[in-house]
């Protein structure tokens, strides 16, 4: 069947017509009952109580259980064909127990009363096996009980209600717009949607029921010349904790020509002279540098060595020498961790331990002020909190990616706040530079295991000369050492430069788990940064 015929005979759903560019036809469509969790609610409560009772009877002092269904839909295309269409569901439950200060965890896909009791006992047995080597027992900071918390991502349009053919048409239209640009030979585009139905209960009486959505539309055109090829990722469009409205608002189709033109322009861009430059970093790029060099090193379990075998430790060690005294950046620099901004990826009602997350300053007035915590970890900061007159409580940063994974500390949304005194523009940042580079979009990234040395590429690089933007550059990457880099930030953009970047696939833990977070930031300017040329001939 040819594509045009396919369009004509496509079924029209009650939710609206498959008409592109007319998002108003789809506004206000919500379908709360479609694709309800696999296990209905009253049964989930009963099952959860069984698990908790079985865990306690076997000897656990604390237990929690998550009964989850994750639905994941992905549509991917290249040029004029579909390369993938999938719609996957996984459901099951995981029971975590604390037995005399040692954790145990077990999970199963078979959601029945007998199985949930067996698995609860299995978790306790495992905790006992591990207890033999215990040196220090786990202690949990207190938290409020939430007997019946309900939360849902603030979506306008359920992405699972939008017909597949409409999503495919949208991506094809974006591909066509890119391929229409001379020099563009290939293009890929895709959309990914997630819905997480997460039911949680613990032995303290907290019960929460949350529905979390995520959405990412993306494209990547590639231009090819005789001896070179260059791509340009659609980094202006970030993943969000939103519904299908994010796809429509992002206007991938309207933006496609610019991405394509920039890929072509990169073919003839000047290969950069390595050296030291002042940099203007647009937030479409900076969010990743912020993620690697501020968000990760302030994970408290990392500082205590729990991630040493994989993601590493932190230069913030020993933490007593840093909290309240380490200057991360200028005194107008504020970095805030939160799980409350509507539409951000880590935003929830309660974390995976039933804690209501707080907003908190990780960096306050340029100084390291606080670290990321779960209930187990908050007590590790007790001395610091006491010295500041603060309560010892979890920031609500516990998360597990699915029923089959144990929850542990993950970063929340972490934002660098805009310049406070006035609304500085990108032009103003550029105007103060004699010799520099402007970087748009995130590209390659690599950072050492203590978050000291890192290297970043980007999508589009432009020369700055005598306060003005010049021609395009390529083969650019910059290398930094974290403390020097943020202290070399002499100005940042105001609110008008604000952008929320983010990622679906932040990795940590063993077995590795993915976390999704948003990072909001303004544009920034940094003086005298080392830039290398990444091209090689082999």
């Amino acid at each position, binding site marked *: 069947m040819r*594509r045009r015929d396919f369009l004509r005979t*496509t079924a029209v759903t009650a939710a609206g017509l498959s008409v592109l560019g007319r998002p108003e036809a789809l506004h206000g469509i919500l379908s709360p009952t479609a694709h309800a969790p696999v296990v209905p609610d009253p049964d989930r409560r009963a099952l959860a109580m069984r698990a908790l009772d079985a865990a306690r009877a076997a000897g656990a002092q604390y237990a929690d259980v998550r009964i989850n269904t994750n639905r994941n839909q992905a549509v991917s295309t290249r040029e004029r*064909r*579909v390369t993938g*269409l*999938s*719609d*996957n*569901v*996984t459901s*099951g439950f995981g029971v975590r127990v604390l037995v005399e200060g*040692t*954790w*145990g*965890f077990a*999970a199963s896909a078979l959601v029945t009363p007998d199985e949930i009791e067996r698995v609860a006992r299995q978790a306790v047995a495992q*905790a006992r*096996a*591990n207890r*033999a*080597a*215990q*040196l220090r027992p786990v202690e949990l900071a207190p938290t409020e009980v939430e007997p019946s918390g309900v939360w849902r991502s603030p979506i306008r349009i359920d992405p699972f209600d939008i*017909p*597949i*053919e409409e999503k*495919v048409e949208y991506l094809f239209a974006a591909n066509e717009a890119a391929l229409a640009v001379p020099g563009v030979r290939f293009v890929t585009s895709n959309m990914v949607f997630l819905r997480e139905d997460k039911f949680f209960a613990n032995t303290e009486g907290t019960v929460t029921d949350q529905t979390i959505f995520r959405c990412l539309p993306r494209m990547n055109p590639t231009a090819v010349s005789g001896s070179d*090829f260059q791509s340009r990722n659609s980094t202006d469009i970030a993943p969000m904790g939103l519904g299908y409205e994010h796809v429509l608002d992002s206007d991938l189709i309207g933006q496609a020509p610019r991405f394509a033109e920039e890929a072509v322009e990169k073919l003839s861009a000047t290969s950069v002279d390595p050296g030291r430059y002042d940099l203007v970093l647009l937030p479409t790029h900076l969010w990743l540098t912020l993620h690697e060099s501020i968000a990760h090193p302030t994970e408290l379990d990392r500082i*205590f*060595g*729990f*991630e*040493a*075998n*994989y993601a590493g430790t932190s*230069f913030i060690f*020993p933490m007593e020498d840093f909290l309240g005294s380490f200057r991360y950046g200028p005194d107008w620099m504020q970095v805030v961790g939160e799980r409350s901004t509507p539409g951000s990826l880590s935003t929830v009602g309660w974390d995976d331990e039933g804690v209501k997350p707080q907003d908190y300053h990780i960096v306050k007035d340029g100084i390291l002020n606080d670290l990321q915590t779960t209930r187990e970890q908050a007590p590790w900061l007790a001395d610091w909190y006491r010295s500041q007159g603060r309560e010892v409580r979890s920031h609500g940063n516990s998360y597990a990616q699915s029923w*089959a*994974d*144990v929850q542990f500390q993950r970063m929340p949304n972490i934002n660098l706040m805009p310049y406070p005194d006035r609304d500085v523009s990108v032009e103003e940042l550029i105007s103060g530079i004699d010799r520099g580079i402007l970087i748009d979009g995130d590209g*390659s*990234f*690599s950072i*050492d*295991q203590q978050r000291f*040395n890192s*290297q970043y590429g980007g999508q589009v690089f432009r020369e700055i000369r005598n306060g003005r933007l010049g021609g395009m550059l390529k*083969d650019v*990457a910059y290398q930094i*050492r974290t403390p020097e880099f943020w202290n070399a930030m002499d100005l940042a953009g105001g609110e008008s430069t604000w952008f929320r970047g983010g990622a679906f696939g932040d*990795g940590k833990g*063993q*077995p*590795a788990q993915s976390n999704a977070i948003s990072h909001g930031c303004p544009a920034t300017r940094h003086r005298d940064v*080392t830039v*290398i040329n*990444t*091209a*090689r001939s*082999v």
Partner: protein
Amino acid sequence: MASPTFLSESECRDLTRRVLELSGADHCRVNITSAADGNTRFAQNQMSTSGDITNTTMTVTSAFGRQVASSTTNRFDDEALRQVVQTSEQLARLAPEDPEYLGEMGPQRYSETSSYFESTAGLEPEERARAIARVTEQAVSRDLVSTGFLVHRAGASCVATSGGLFAYTTDSRVNFTTTVRTPDGTGSGWGGTSVNDWNDLDTGALGRIAADKAEGSRQPRDVEPGRWTVVMEPTAVGNMVGLMMNQLSARSADEGRSFFSAPGGGTRLGQAFVDSRVTIHSDPEDPRIHSSPFNGEGLPNQRTVWVEDGVLRQLNYNRYWASRTGREPTGFPSGWYMAGGSDTVDEMIASTERGLLLTRFWYIRSVDPRTIVFTGLTRDGTFLIENGRIAHPVKNLRWNETPIFMLNNIEMMGAPVRISSGESAGLTPSVVVPPLKVRDFSFTSLSDAI
């Protein structure tokens, strides 16, 4: 818990038969992965988290003509099976034609493999804890801080198609890694490996290696970045060569989008592109490499020589690209073996006037796909070699380098060894590589990270 909780061959036959009977599509394929996973993580010399997970997932791919889509579930009651078949068919009916879809295959013949060991399948948490205690007790007695991860799986994979293909295999795998640090945070060492048979794993020996490196790497000193002669332990070699093995797509090469594209058109097949001592092959029947006898479509994996005496002998052709270019599809079994030589690491060190001994690489990310240049850092055991001896530990370095350049600058090769090949220390494919001495490895900056 002693008996493995994954689907047997007869259970898979039954399940796939039920699904295929429900199918109304022109082509249907069922993929099943069924496994019991266990893990124990440790930090600060004690267990931190653990897990025991039982799961079976099934993906149904349906096609009407060349309209294809898939759906995945992990429930297997009648209603769930109907749902997953229906969803995949609904999606497929909505999909535009995929001109590259070739339908599903008929019956195939597969290699005999022996990758399943009862010793691994029957592993209990107590035994995991004992294996880890052999590391943590050593660390405590030497006043060091150990962290690490032990993970294992015993399970089955199955593929069945409406064309009559049926493939089933079991395997068991273990991965163990440990990072040991000094309490003052100035030294860090690592040891790790992967095996299929639990009885082949000696956690105590790996713990000792990591502890020795931790003590030996205290108070590291600066060295200048630049081009260095390096003695690379097998894990570091596998980290680099694996980057090249991931770039073997024939299609990308034909389309001008890869290092293996020839300038001006065509591919580099048949060209010498690395040192003549480099030979890399895959073979599901080679007992040194444990890999699956078939891929996700049920295509049999067979012995394939990718690089022979430095010449590119084969690229990875999927079924579609093979039919387009008139070649046989290769599949990519994901496990591979790089031949080596007979020099030991000690001999490599003794032969080096000035160089660096490297344990492994970290945070390896692509910088330039045209030349397979990646960047990353050294980690957990980096030492200066002077006049044939280890002189002192050095600070870690960031590198920007390509395996192509590295494999053109080989000076000595050792006996191949199986490694833990991934950065996250999960269950990775079977990779067997030699230690190498290489000249002119490019380090671009120093790192303060321990």
